[in-house]
């Protein structure tokens, strides 16, 4: 009897599994330790820091114009959204108002970047669920956006285009025509992507009801962005606290119902449609005029501090900036949405199966450059 009891206990010892940091489905170098009992996950523990570059500290040694290049590399899938956040923070501190045209160009490019980012999510998420096709389609659409970026900013990813007080260069002459084709193509592309994966039986079976968290829990854990909206909370910084010129556009905030993986996925598909709408409106309203306010090349904001929230594709991207009056910031703190959303991972993984860990992690859409900074 004694012996049998011991064996039973030995049977129930949880098995520790290391996912990452070099696991291909962790979207970067992210290590997730899970303890499993059979197929069920009993405990999980995320480990971050494998991509830590000290960006916040590096900012303290760079001039404001040089910091933009560091922000490019935070969320390296949605570079322009990060650039916008730091530039707007410096502008707020200096009391500079960028010209109308610059604001419109920024919004157009940032919304396109949101689409590009969600397209990458779409492709990679399909891959996480075991479907090979979506990534090819997602990348096809993303490539179109990046080709446009290349013609406007000169770079496909690390643009360094948005400046304190405006943007670097005016849009090229053929921008309007290219934009029209691009928007038509993207519209078709989003529909095609949606058709391809969203209602696929196998995809539904793998994502519906998986990794669900309640709205209260999500709010308690500081989740923002599509992951929060999937729980049914219509919170979007663009509408709740409009920055730049977002109050001039007519767009909806898509929300989910159950807060499960499928909702988190589908909120992003819907968001792409809304972003396309914003871009269409912005292109139609694009005014003529200056593209940059006159700001000295070496910006010296007055002494003080500022906090600014923007809505990046991953959620509420905040920048806290302390200036001591010199040409370099005293302190820069980034509230990275990926990092905060990652807090919910443990809650989502509760009682999930091992096979779903990848799907759940993928549905948060983390970017490690932003998590580790």
């Amino acid at each position, binding site marked *: 009897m004694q012996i049998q009891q011991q064996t039973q206990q030995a049977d129930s010892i949880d098995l520790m599994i290391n996912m990452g940091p070099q696991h291909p489905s962790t979207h970067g170098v992210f290590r997730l330790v899970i303890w499993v009992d059979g197929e069920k996950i009993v405990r999980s523990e995320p480990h971050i820091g494998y991509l830590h570059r000290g960006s916040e500290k590096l900012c303290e040694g*760079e*001039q404001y*114009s*040089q910091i933009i*290049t*560091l922000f490019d590399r935070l969320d390296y899938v949605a570079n322009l959204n990060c650039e916008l956040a730091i530039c707007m923070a410096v502008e707020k501190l200096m009391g500079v108002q960028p010209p109308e045209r610059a604001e419109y160009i920024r919004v157009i490019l940032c919304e396109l970047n949101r689409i590009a980012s969600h397209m990458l999510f779409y492709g990679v998420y399909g891959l996480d669920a075991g479907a090979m*096709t979506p990534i090819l389609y997602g990348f*096809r659409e993303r490539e179109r956006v990046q*080709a446009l970026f*290349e*013609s*406007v*900013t*000169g*770079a496909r990813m*690390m643009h*360094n285009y948005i400046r304190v007080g405006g943007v*670097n*260069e005016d849009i*090229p002459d053929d921008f309007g025509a290219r934009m029209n084709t691009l928007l038509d193509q993207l519209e078709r592309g989003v529909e095609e992507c949606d058709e*391809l994966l969203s*209602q*696929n*039986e*196998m*995809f539904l079976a793998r994502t519906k009801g998986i990794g669900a968290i309640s709205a209260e829990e999500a709010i308690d854990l500081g989740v923002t962005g599509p992951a929060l909206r999937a729980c049914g909370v219509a919170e979007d910084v663009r509408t709740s606290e409009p920055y730049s010129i977002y109050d001039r556009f007519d767009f909806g905030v898509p929300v989910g119902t159950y807060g499960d993986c499928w909702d988190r996925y589908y909120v992003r598909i819907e968001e792409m449609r809304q972003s396309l709408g914003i871009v269409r409106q912005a292109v139609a309203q694009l005014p003529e005029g200056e593209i940059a306010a006159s700001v000295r*090349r070496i910006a010296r904001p007055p002494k003080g501090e500022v906090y600014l929230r923007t809505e990046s594709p991953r959620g509420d991207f905040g920048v806290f900036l302390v200036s001591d009056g010199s040409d370099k910031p005293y302190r820069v703190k980034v509230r990275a949405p990926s990092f905060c959303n990652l807090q919910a991972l443990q809650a989502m993984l509760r009682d999930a199966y091992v096979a779903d860990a990848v799907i759940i992690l993928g549905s948060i859409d983390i970017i490690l450059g932003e998590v580790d900074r």
Partner: protein
Amino acid sequence: MIGFIEGLVVTLKTALRKPVTDEYPEPEKRRQVEPRYMGFPALLWDYDVPEPYCTGCMVCVRACPTQCMSAQMTDNPKYADEQSRRRKIIESFEINLGRCILCGICVDVCNFDAIEMSHEHELSKYERNGNRVDLGQLMDMGRKFQGDTGWSPSNPAKNSGVPVAKGSRRAAPRRAGAGSAVGSDAPS
């Protein structure tokens, strides 16, 4: 099961379609870069004088966020001979292109139209420091860029090296190839 068949229908539909991707290695098949493409920085050549536009003022060196450049200024002998308006000229210039992050800040800050982001982006080397380029190489890159895109200075009145004392500015002897539509025959 229906989803599975639907998936196969998509596969069949796309099987015969023209491929979306461009091929890479052959130069004529690959994608062309946009006119604004920011490749590695290159120093430009003033064909009118002839000498580099760069005066070695070091502004770009100080503004570079990765500190990957270094420059040395010297007196311009052509200025003494009244062949050039540039009092100072670059003596040596080095950029470690392995460190350059292609941000374009050096181009923004240069007051002399002397540096430009070329369309050069294929610079794989076997050695770690193989991409440390000196003045001559930077100039070659710049001349290639000028020839390919028909680059002209943004502020010719200020930045041309042709001495003003000489009276009317002679018609600039343009190189063959210069003046072609910008970017239409951009190098890859």
